[in-house]
């Protein structure tokens, strides 16, 4: 009967109940969004970095991968030095440069990665074949659209552009061997991948035996931090960054979003709690006489509290359920805004729905709804019966 009483009490003022549930839903949605924001960046970034199993990134000293145009000299000897370190299983050198696809009109500029297609973690082949031959490349859909090229077509490409003299250090004709999705670039970015040696030669003397980045895969079970430190000792001209370190660095740069998420999430929780408290308090105050009568006829204090708390739970659960849907919708919208950051990899999401985190957050909101109902109901159930009945009679 307590459940029935609670349900009937909520239905007594339908517009009030609906509005309160809506308020709780908005609170729940904001809380859910902030939980998604707090964990999303980290999880999606970690997932991206962990793809293909590369656990360490090695960049020119003092820089982050592709943060600047600096390169590491004597790349070959660096690769040999790293391969000699115990625990290192694969070293994949990568060179980044601008590539210009020449045609009859204005050239199309793309971002090119020079790499070893057999040991790379920068793209996923969607169609065709890897650029195993020295004169092959794979291209992103955006580049293919911009050049009007298809798999099998030959492109006239150049690198090492000198803007003052308007000359190129190297020029080649390369065959489009495949179509690829570049993991660390945006979906609309024009990009290509070709063999490292080809891009180095096209870059002229400035690019000889130089790379932008090494990606290192360690043996399973090896202490990654230990290998990372060994790389930095062996090669003082580089900075080695483990996946954990990269995530930490990214989190530091984006710490604002995590802190915003925490603050707004806390505010949402507090507001949801206050809303349920207010609703329950007003509802209880309206029914003081009824509560006193129930106590008079023998309904225990605890059972009255239970009934009122169940009303609070009903509001919170209803609101949380609606908030879950609302939160996912608003998260998609907010994510679409943040995904338009220039240069952000397509695979990164700021708002990531993780069921266990989401339900934990909503559970917290529901628990706060329970707590919100306890004090006002206990207070009302503890009022002196006769005095209350007398006051209600006068009122």
């Amino acid at each position: 009967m307590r459940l029935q009483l609670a349900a009937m009490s909520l239905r007594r003022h339908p517009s009030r109940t609906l509005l309160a549930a809506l308020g709780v839903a908005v609170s729940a949605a904001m809380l859910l969004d902030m939980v998604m924001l707090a964990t999303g960046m980290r999880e999606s970034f970690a997932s991206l970095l962990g793809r293909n199993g590369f656990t360490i990134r090695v960049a020119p000293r003092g820089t982050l991968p592709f943060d600047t145009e600096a390169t590491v000299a004597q790349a070959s000897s660096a690769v040999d030095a790293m391969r000699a370190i115990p625990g290192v299983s694969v070293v994949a050198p990568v060179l980044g440069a601008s590539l210009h696809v020449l045609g009859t009109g204005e050239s199309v500029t793309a971002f090119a990665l020079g790499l070893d297609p057999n040991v790379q973690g920068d793209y996923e082949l969607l169609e065709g074949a890897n650029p195993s031959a020295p004169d092959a490349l794979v291209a992103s859909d955006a580049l293919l659209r911009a050049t009007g090229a298809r798999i099998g077509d030959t492109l006239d490409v150049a690198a090492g552009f000198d803007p003052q003299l308007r000359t190129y250090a190297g020029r080649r004709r390369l065959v489009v061997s495949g179509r690829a999705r570049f993991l660390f670039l945006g979906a609309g970015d024009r990009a290509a991948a070709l063999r490292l040696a080809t891009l180095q030669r096209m870059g002229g003397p400035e690019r000889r035996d130089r790379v932008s980045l090494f990606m290192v895969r360690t043996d399973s079970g090896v202490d990654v931090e230990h290998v990372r430190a060994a790389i930095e000792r062996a090669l003082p001209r580089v900075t080695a960054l483990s996946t954990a370190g990269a995530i930490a660095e990214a989190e530091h740069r984006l710490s604002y979003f995590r802190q915003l998420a925490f603050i707004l999430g806390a505010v949402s929780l507090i507001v949801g709690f206050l809303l349920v408290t207010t609703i329950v308090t007003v509802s209880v105050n309206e029914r003081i006489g009824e509560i006193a009568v129930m106590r008079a006829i023998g309904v225990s204090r605890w059972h009255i509290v239970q009934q009122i708390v169940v009303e609070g739970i009903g509001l919170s659960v209803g609101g949380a359920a609606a908030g879950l849907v609302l939160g996912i919708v608003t998260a998609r919208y907010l994510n679409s805004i943040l995904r338009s950051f220039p240069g952000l990899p397509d695979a990164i999401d700021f708002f990531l729905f993780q069921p266990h985190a989401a339900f934990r957050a909503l559970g917290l909101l529901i628990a706060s709804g329970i707590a919100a109902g306890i004090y006002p109901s206990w207070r009302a159930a503890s009022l002196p019966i006769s005095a209350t009945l007398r006051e209600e009679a006068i009122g």
Partner: protein
Amino acid sequence: MTALPALLSARDVHRDYALAGAAVHAVRGVTLDVAAGEYVAVVGPSGCGKSTLLNLLGAIDRPTRGTVFVAGTEVSTLPDRAATRFRLLNVGFVFQRFYLLPVLTARENVELPMAEAGVPVAERRRRAMELLGYVGLAERGAHRPTELSGGEQQRVAIARALANHPAVLLADEPTGELDARTGADVIALFDRLNRDGTTIVVVTHDEQLAGAARRVVHMLDGRVIRDEPLRRRA
């Protein structure tokens, strides 16, 4: 005093409370016995302490001094939880303003004390309909209090008070909000209840209701000033 064994027994009961900083002696040294099956009316001017006395007898309130026994249990010292349980199973209350829960139907209002006492659903439903039939409202069980007249609401309240077979029925101004005709219906119902064996103590200003009782206790300034002898049933 009566020769029959006392179902309700108050011994030198006092009830004082503070009101706006001043001490109010609502009940001063009342000693009263009510035997099983009696029908007692407590009358007196407003503020004489009769409602307070009723609350003390029903274990709603605790005396400042003195003892109260109901059905052999000293209720004046019971802790809140025990007093609540005692009221549920032994005392039926009827109030001036009915105090039915507006969100429940008449039948559900009658079922409420039985639900609290743990009576199974089918049993309490059956008994609720039986009680509504007793008070003449069997066909109104599905109606909400706002759909019932004042007299009907009071009869539902009486049915609710009888739900758990209480030892005593306590009524505080049960006809106070009713017109003369519906009040008479309630008075007749009380009479019938008493004839059927229910012990009733009623507090009232209503002369007709007081006249229907078998014994009238007069109060003034918190004291019993007159206790009219038992009248035989007609």
